[in-house]
Every structure is written in C-alpha cells, then in structure tokens.
C-alpha cells in the first residue's frame, strides 16, 4: 500500500514506549502493534488525534505517501 505508517520512528524519536502510548490512546498494545506495522485498514480520527497529542506531532509525521 502506498501509505506507510511511521509511528515506530516517532516513538523512537520521542523515546516513548508503545505500552504507554497504547494506554494513553485507549487501544490495545496488539492493535498499536498492527498500526505500527501498517497491517490495518484505517485509523479513526480520534485515535490519530490522541496519538498526535501524546507525541506532540502532526498526522503527516505519522503517515507518508510513497508511490508503488
């Protein structure tokens, strides 16, 4: 898929653990792991908003469009 998720990069840059982010956003670690690996069909705006708020970033920092 041309949309890639860069959440793992942002987590590393912010030195935030997946477990803490999952707890703050209110999703399971399993779902966060799926999101990090890009194995999801979509992200709710509410989830995206909570992630951006916690990591202090923009949606564009988490998602990237790359031509196939």
């Amino acid at each position, binding site marked *: 898929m041309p949309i890639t998720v860069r959440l793992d990069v942002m987590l590393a840059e912010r030195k935030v653990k997946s477990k803490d982010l999952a707890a703050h956003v209110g999703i399971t670690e399993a779902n966060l792991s*799926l999101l990090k690996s890009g194995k999801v069909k*979509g*992200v709710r705006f509410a989830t995206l908003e909570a992630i951006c708020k916690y990591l202090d970033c923009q949606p564009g920092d988490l998602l990237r469009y790359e031509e196939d």
Partner: protein
Amino acid sequence: MNNKLLSLTLLKWIIWFSITLIITFNVWIWVDPSALSHLGAEKRLIDNYGGISGMVLWQRIAGFVVDALPAGLLIAALASLIGLIRQLEAGNWFAEASERALARVGHLMLWYLLASFLNDTLLVLIATATNPPGERALAISLSSDTVLGLVPALMALVIARMVRLAREQRDELNQIV
C-alpha cells in the same frame, strides 16, 4: 434466561412441534386415511380420483413416497432453522455458519416449492394409474400457497446475503484502530 433467549427457545419448540406434526400427518394419512377424513389437501385431491382407500398397496407406497419428498424437504429446512437458532443463541449473529444455515433454508424452501408443485401431478398420476386407458388423469395445479411460499424462500436467501455483507463490514471495522 432473558427474553431474547426465551423467544429463541420457544421458536425451537415450535419448530420441533411442526416437524413432529408433519411426520405424523404424512404417515397417518397414508396408513389410515379414514381417521383424517376432513384434513389434508392431498387427500381431498385424491378423493376426486377414487380416494386413498381405493388404492392398491403399491399405489399407497408410491403416494407416500411422493408425499414424503416435499415433507422431507420442509423438515430439512426446519432443521436448518434450528441450526440457525443455535448459532443465534451462541451470539454468532454474523457467523459464516449462520449465513450458511439461512442460505440452506432458502434453497430447501425453493426445492420444497418445486416438489409441492409436482406433488399433485404425481399423486393424480399414481391414483389413476390402475384405471383403464382413457380414464387416467393428468393434473397440473399451481396454488397461491406455492407462489406465496416463494416469499420466505427468497427472504431467507436475501437475509443470508445481508448477513454476509454485515460480516464483511464488521471484519473491516475490526481492522480500523
């Protein structure tokens, strides 16, 4: 037990009762037709051609077999409905098994309608088979019951399709975090 489960249990009992009634009625009408003098469309139809009591043994057996075919299909459809109710009791509303059970009900009901349509024709053929040439009959009948039977059959097939679409949507929603 909550009301939803209670109503499903009640439905199961109604289905079991219907199955028992269908079997009893179909066996009884061919074994002892005099006991059911005012019941049974088949019996009334055959009465016009000499009645069941005037049939020889092979005609009775053949008549029973011809009558048993739609009855068997109806029983199979009802049994599939019990399977569906069990799925619902387990909370598997959108499960593949529920969809399969519903589709099976729809298909069996369509076969039942076809068998019912041919039933009268075959019964009259059997009833008049021993008549001398020229007195044998061929009847083709299409009752409003047969046409109305299409409604539950097609409804079951449409609902089966809806269950599939609902399951696909649920699966897709589960992949959105």
